[in-house]
């Protein structure tokens, strides 16, 4: 089987597992773990195909664009699909370990698996979609699955947060869809590659660009549209928080990258690119500042996501006029991978804290290093990546961005990057400080599954180790330069 054919398996495998998990609840955990295990090899296979041929594409049903729907994967898609597969695998393990044992199936687990698998299917489909309307459908699938997953927590706070998240998500998608409609009205094309050639700088295209960008900013929680993220991400169950912060918000960012560096490249001037970078900078400062002042662990981590998303938006101005765009992009992508793994690790560790102590107020972290040494170590390692200390992937990503920014004399972004690291150090140390206070007893109030501890550790270790192999995403991105789809 050629790797092109794989492209439809990426969304299909988790989707079928989701159906099984929903129809046969007794099999849901097994279906979920099977799909989660199948995804890393599939993603790796896709990446190998991209390395070999630059770009994979599959016209569904044999219908080629503009009539049919094409699935496509280039270096950026392959990196995202790999991130979903690897982070998704560990999150699935953690979920399976932290739900009650076999025989007991809670209401929460009954609905967790189908929705979680649907979320994975939607994300995979999103990252291999080749046209703007298909991207809309994938945005909605991931959005609705993500909202419902937040609601599985069942608490009044979670339900309210889910409802607020749903309204932002739905209206964001509709802004995006209106942009798609106007774009189609002006060009008669939906395919991302074909759009690059036909989008002109006329008023309808500019309106479409504004609508789509606005909608995606809402979905990506870019400052000042971030207000929905902290309540939703902090009130969800631990595996869901991890998936939302690590993977789901990256979907909107991915589409923005594709559009701004693809079809809208001629519309976007230097002013707009500095402006979106400015919002990213504001997100870093505001998100970090809020993170420093939150009373609860999960809120600290959620505000940290607001800040870390800001870094990814600095990629726009830094990569825009870079002499070596691929190097700047590598920096952004490595930072994205670092955040995906580190943030998932911290949220899973926070889930372990909640399970052990019963609440996640920052003072309750006292004694964590003795009660849950593995989780405490995971939080420390992930903190290294979030702050951006060497040799973590967070450091390599920031370093590449700093070099690219300095080459163009855009020193103000460097200042923001450094300030962000200092603020991140403050909120990470604020969490780790109490963790090393010695408790009175040796045992935590409630026992925590060992798998749940080690999955958090594995993700945290990955976020540091990725720094040593940052050349891999660089190769993937370089493989598809000039394929017409790549940014």
């Amino acid at each position, binding site marked *: 089987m050629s790797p092109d054919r794989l492209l439809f398996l990426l969304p299909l495998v988790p989707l079928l597992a989701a159906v099984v998990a929903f129809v046969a609840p007794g099999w849901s955990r097994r279906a979920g773990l099977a799909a989660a295990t199948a995804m890393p090899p599939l993603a790796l296979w896709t990446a190998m195909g991209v390395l070999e041929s630059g770009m994979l594409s599959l016209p569904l049903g044999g219908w080629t664009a503009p*009539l049919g729907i094409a699935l496509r994967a280039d270096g950026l898609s392959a990196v995202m699909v790999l991130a979903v597969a690897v982070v998704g695998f560990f999150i699935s393990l953690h979920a399976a370990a932290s739900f009650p044992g076999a025989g007991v199936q809670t209401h929460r687990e009954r609905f967790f698996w189908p929705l979680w698998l649907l979320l994975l299917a939607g994300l995979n489909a999103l990252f291999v979609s080749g046209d703007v*309307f298909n991207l809309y*459908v994938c945005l*909605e699938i991931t959005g*609705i699955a993500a*909202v*419902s997953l937040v*609601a599985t927590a069942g*608490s*009044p706070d979670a*339900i*309210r947060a*889910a*409802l607020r998240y*749903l*309204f932002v998500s*739905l*209206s964001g998608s*509709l*802004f995006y*869809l*209106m942009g*798609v*409609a*106007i774009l*189609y*009205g002006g060009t*008669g094309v*939906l395919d991302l590659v074909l759009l690059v050639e036909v989008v002109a700088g006329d008023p309808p295209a500019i309106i479409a660009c504004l609508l789509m960008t606005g909608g995606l900013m809402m979905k990506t929680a870019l400052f000042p549209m971030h207000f929905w993220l902290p309540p939703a991400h902090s009130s969800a169950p631990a595996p869901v928080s991890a998936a939302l912060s690590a993977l789901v918000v990256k979907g909107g960012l991915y589409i923005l990258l594709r559009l701004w560096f693809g079809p809208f490249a001629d519309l976007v001037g230097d002013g707009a690119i500095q402006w979106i970078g400015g919002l990213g900078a504001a997100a870093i400062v505001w998100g970090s500042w809020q993170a420093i002042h939150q009373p609860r662990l999960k809120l600290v981590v959620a505000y940290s996501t607001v800040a870390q998303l800001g870094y990814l938006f600095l990629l726009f101005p830094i990569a825009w006029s870079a002499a070596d765009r691929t190097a700047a992009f590598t920096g952004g992508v490595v930072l994205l991978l670092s955040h995906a793994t580190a943030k998932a690790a911290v949220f899973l560790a926070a889930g372990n804290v909640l399970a052990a102590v019963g609440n996640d107020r920052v003072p309750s972290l006292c004694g964590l290093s003795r009660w849950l040494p593995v989780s405490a170590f995971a939080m420390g390692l992930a903190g290294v990546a979030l702050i951006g200390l060497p040799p973590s992937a967070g450091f390599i990503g920031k370093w590449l961005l700093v070099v690219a920014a300095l080459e163009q004399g855009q020193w103000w972004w460097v200042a923001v990057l450094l300030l962000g690291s200092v603020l991140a150090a403050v909120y990470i140390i604020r969490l780790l400080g109490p963790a090393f206070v010695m408790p009175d007893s040796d045992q935590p109030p409630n026992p925590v599954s060992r798998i749940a501890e080690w999955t958090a550790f594995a993700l945290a270790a990955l976020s540091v180790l990725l720094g040593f192999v940052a050349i891999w995403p660089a190769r993937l991105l370089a493989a598809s330069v000039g394929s017409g789809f790549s940014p």
Partner: protein
Amino acid sequence: MTGSTVDLFLLVGAALFALGAAGVFREVEALRRIIAVNVMGSGVFLVLVAIAARGEGPPDPVPHAMVLTGIVVAVCATAVALALADLSRRHGSSADDKADR
């Protein structure tokens, strides 16, 4: 279809979209916001149908397919929103009781 009719549809579609968007951001009551999202969606669908009807000959089927898909998505999303709103209202009353005590 004549150009002026298409223009009218486009304008009404844009107006509905704007009205709905204003509703989503300004309303507080969940049910009103759900209706506002649907008004927004109808605006987009109307614009798509008008785009399909432009020009000579039979209408362009691609926007029609997009509207059909969009309606399916809108129905699902509305169902989820209604379920959440209902849950939130039931929880909301008990949370208010706590606040009173």
